[in-house]
């Protein structure tokens, strides 16, 4: 009886995953074919814009650098993201007065419609979302993780990736325009992707680089699971910040054959050979929850919080390029030089701390 029940549960689970897997590419393909309209959820963007005005953030003309944050697979909408991320983004924004950090793109939808937006299952997702503040470790939240994980797979799949990544690039572009970015301004853009958002950031970079018409474009992955994507060759530079105890980000080099050592002609290895990839170790951080890169409670032996270490290293990467005094034109920045600067700063800080 019990065995039968367990078998039934396993079969049910496999069927559920199969259905989710088969349905996964249909949203983006349907959008591309024109079957699904452009029902853009503007509420997130409008809320973000009014927030910008309310907090007297820099006016668009004063913004020298646009940063678009793509959350991990635990997000329901562009703004409904795991609870440890908003404080981090606020702190990042405070560190970068000349930049604007935009966080209203939902990277797991080609139309930027969050899971709780106008969707067939919207009400179901709303109920799951309501669980998170009460019980952040509820198993129900795995539903959204699995759903978004399949979208990451869509982004990484060579068959659907171009469609999906175009959709997200279009929404990133839309949100950049709404936040004051003007075509031809040549202002630099950085995409920051956490977890699955790292793959989507790299994937959409292929189209964004074309849309931005030569403006500097960089991608920063925060514990991202990134495939060997063409986007790596289309960005100025790709940074991967990772925790040594984060086995999820390490999956990228295991599950994506293009990242295997033997795949010398893959996009990953070509980008690596071109000096476009920099790996930055954060410390003994996990992927999510206690001990993660956003955790404010966990501290290193030297007394620094995980949160602060991540913030510092990420800020260093971003500041190196754009918020420094204008000693040189940012177009002429050499990624290798910048990497050396970041490394030098990190070393200096480590020396200070150890001293």
């Amino acid at each position, binding site marked *: 009886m019990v065995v039968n029940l367990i078998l039934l549960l396993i079969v049910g689970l496999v069927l559920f995953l199969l259905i989710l897997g088969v349905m996964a590419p249909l949203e983006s393909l349907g959008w*591309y074919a024109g079957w699904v309209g452009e029902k853009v959820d503007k509420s997130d963007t409008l809320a973000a814009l009014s927030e910008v005005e309310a907090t007297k953030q820099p006016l668009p003309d004063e913004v020298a650098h646009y940063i678009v944050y793509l959350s991990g697979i635990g997000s329901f909408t562009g703004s409904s993201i795991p609870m440890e991320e908003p404080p981090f983004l606020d702190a990042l924004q405070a560190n970068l007065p000349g930049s604007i950090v935009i966080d209203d793109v939902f990277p797991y939808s080609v139309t930027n419609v969050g899971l709780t937006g106008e969707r067939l299952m919207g009400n179901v997702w709303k109920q799951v979302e309501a669980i998170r503040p009460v019980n952040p470790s509820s198993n129900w939240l795995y539903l959204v993780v699995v759903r978004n994980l399949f979208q990451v797979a869509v982004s990484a799949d060579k068959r659907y990736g171009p469609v999906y990544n175009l959709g997200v690039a279009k929404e990133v572009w839309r949100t950049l325009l*709404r936040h004051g970015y003007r075509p031809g301004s040549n202002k630099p853009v950085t995409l920051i992707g956490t977890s699955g958002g790292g793959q989507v950031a790299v994937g959409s970079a292929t189209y964004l680089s074309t849309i931005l018409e030569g403006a500097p474009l960089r991608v920063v992955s925060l514990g991202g699971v990134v495939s060997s994507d063409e986007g790596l060759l289309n960005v100025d530079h790709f940074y991967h910040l990772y925790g040594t105890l984060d086995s999820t980000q390490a999956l990228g080099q295991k599950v994506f054959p293009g990242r295997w050592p033997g795949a010398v002609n893959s996009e990953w290895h070509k980008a690596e050979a071109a000096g476009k990839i920099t790996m930055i170790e954060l410390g003994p951080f996990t992927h999510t929850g206690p001990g993660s890169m956003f955790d404010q409670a966990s501290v290193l032996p030297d007394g620094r919080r995980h949160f602060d270490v991540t913030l510092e290293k990420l800020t260093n990467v971003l500041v190196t390029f754009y918020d420094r005094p204008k000693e040189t034109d940012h177009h002429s920045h050499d990624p290798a030089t910048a990497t050396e600067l970041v490394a030098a700063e990190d070393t200096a800080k480590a020396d200070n701390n150890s001293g």
Partner: protein
Amino acid sequence: MILDYLYYLWQAIWNALIFNPRVYEVVSEYQQTFWVTLGVAILGGASLLIGQSVVLFVNQVTPARFILSMVLNGLQFAISLLVWAVLLTFLGGLIFDIEVPFRIAIRIMFLTAAPMVFGFMVLIPYLGLTIQKILQVWSLLITIQIVNFEFGTNLFQSLIVVGLGWLLTVLLGSTIGRPITALRDFIWRKFVGATLDADIQEVYQRIARQKVDQVTQQELEAHSGS
């Protein structure tokens, strides 16, 4: 009536999938199983098209044409199996001097489409292409078993017949098969608006530009109006 048909359809698919040789005996014996096995072939072809439908979406076919293309692909798949049946019957007769009635060969050959009923799973991102390979190998194994059933050959002889059949298909496809391919493409263009061999990259480039230009125009107009 329909329920009976669906029951027999399921029985044919399941028994072919588990390599039950009894299914070939039943199909050989009863002429009326033609419609059941034809159902397996059409269902397999239609399901496989869902799995490979990215080319239809990229070509922006309408939902109505999508359904039409499923039917077309089902029929095309059945015809390709019919050609297979002719070739294998011809080769088996030539090599082993065993005459298998053509109508029986066709009925049995349609059963090789049974694994393709799961062709829709090729849609699954990242795993889909591996699933496709598994289904193809599964179908090939059924073909080998069918050759073994029809001609009483051992595994090695069955492999030779199937291998020769494949070579013959390639040869015919690049010679006298060309007008047939052209006719197929014509039918696809006429009814669906695209062929399954369309250049996806070219279509991507064209439509990607359109979509981005559309967003830029919308947002800049909204901005200038505010």
